[in-house]
């Protein structure tokens, strides 16, 4: 399993791996917002957490369709399905590798992009923290979509649309926790804890669903 994790990480940084594509897209989305809405610093800092979260959500969805498709194209998926290891565990490891390669860079880039949006230190910290606990849920949800669409040659957009309804709660609670950290009456902990709960819930359900879909994807 460690071998699988290391291989996926290696693949993501090699040519065509696409680990940097997500973070570049994230930067592009967030960096153009100040140009679009104009230099109104108050407005920027007010919409900042939401924009950073939306950018991260879209970037996280970007590379998901390749999660199992590359394995299927070169025949590796067949061999993975035949092994003794529980498929759920294999999927979980692949999700973790995908998260480290594609979503962790987003979390790391978030503070920098927070500065673009004139966010306060507390808001930047809150957004980074909520992204850290919220993005794994996006990966686990996306794994189910990627597994369902594994046999489709152009499944990219379909995966994003399939998983978007399930990803919306993550966005809602992530953004509301970020706002709660800077706006006084709203408490930070309840939405943050719900966000953690969503991540843990999908950490169990996502790999299960994806494994089921892969087993039944037979061509």
């Amino acid at each position, binding site marked *: 399993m460690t071998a699988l994790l290391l291989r996926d990480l290696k693949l993501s940084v090699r040519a065509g791996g696409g680990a940097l594509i997500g973070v570049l897209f994230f930067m592009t989305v967030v960096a153009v917002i100040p140009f679009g809405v104009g230099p109104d610093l108050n407005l920027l800092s007010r919409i900042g957490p939401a924009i950073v979260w939306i950018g991260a959500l879209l970037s996280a969805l970007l590379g998901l369709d390749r999660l199992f498709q590359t394995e299927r194209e070169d025949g590796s998926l067949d*061999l993975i399905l035949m092994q003794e290891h529980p498929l759920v565990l294999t999927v979980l490891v692949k999700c973790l590798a995908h998260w480290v390669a594609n979503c962790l860079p987003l979390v790391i880039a978030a503070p920098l992009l927070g500065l673009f949006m004139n966010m306060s230190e507390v808001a930047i910290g809150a957004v980074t923290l909520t992204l850290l606990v919220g993005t794994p849920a996006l990966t686990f949800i996306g794994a189910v979509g990627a597994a369902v669409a594994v046999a489709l040659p152009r499944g990219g957009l379909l995966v994003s649309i399939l998983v978007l309804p399930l990803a919306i709660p993550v966005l809602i609670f992530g953004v509301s926790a970020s706002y709660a950290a800077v706006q006084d009456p709203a408490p930070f902990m309840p939405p943050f804890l719900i966000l953690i709960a969503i991540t843990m819930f999908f950490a169990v359900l996502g790999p299960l669903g994806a494994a089921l879909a892969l087993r039944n994807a037979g061509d």
Partner: protein
Amino acid sequence: MRLTADKLAARRGEDLLFSDISFDLGAGEALILTGRNGSGKSTLLRVVAGLLRPERGTVTWAAPGSDISVRASEACHYLGHRNAMKAELSVAENLSFWKSFFGDFDGGTALSVHEAADRVGLEGITHLPFGYLSAGQQRRMAFAKLLVAHRPVWILDEPTAALDTRAEATFTDLIREHLDRGGLLLAATHQPLGLEGTQELQMTGFAGVMEEAW
């Protein structure tokens, strides 16, 4: 060790591609599937490898002292049309990944990555990315994958496609060695592999539309 298929039937679309296929392979035995294109050779191999669900019938694996719950596919190596290697990774990285991911099946040891590359005659180029190799070299390296982890059953789908005659001879030697060690072989091929004492199963293609399944 026995690999037994009992009355297998598989469906492609609406029609049954084959039905009532049974075979029983013991240690050191080989079954060669022949038949024209589209006669269901690959489908049968994928059913045995557990990658397609059979319409009817079962595939079972039995070995002395082994758990009854072991799926047949866990005892198998499957070499399909695609090589299951990553073009971005070097040959050595590919092979050592599969070596540790596969692990050895009960009662056998495997070659190291270096030895396996040596056996297929490509020991000097394991540092190259897999994508740089020619089609024949890629096929040889995919074959080396069978050597880095022990599996009693080898399921080979057109193993000698894209190979020159020397490589074919190498493959035949490796297969013979596998059978001599008590391995089992199930292969679909057009070219004769040059093995003696093998069973042959002639696939005829569509077994006709059977009674509706529902």
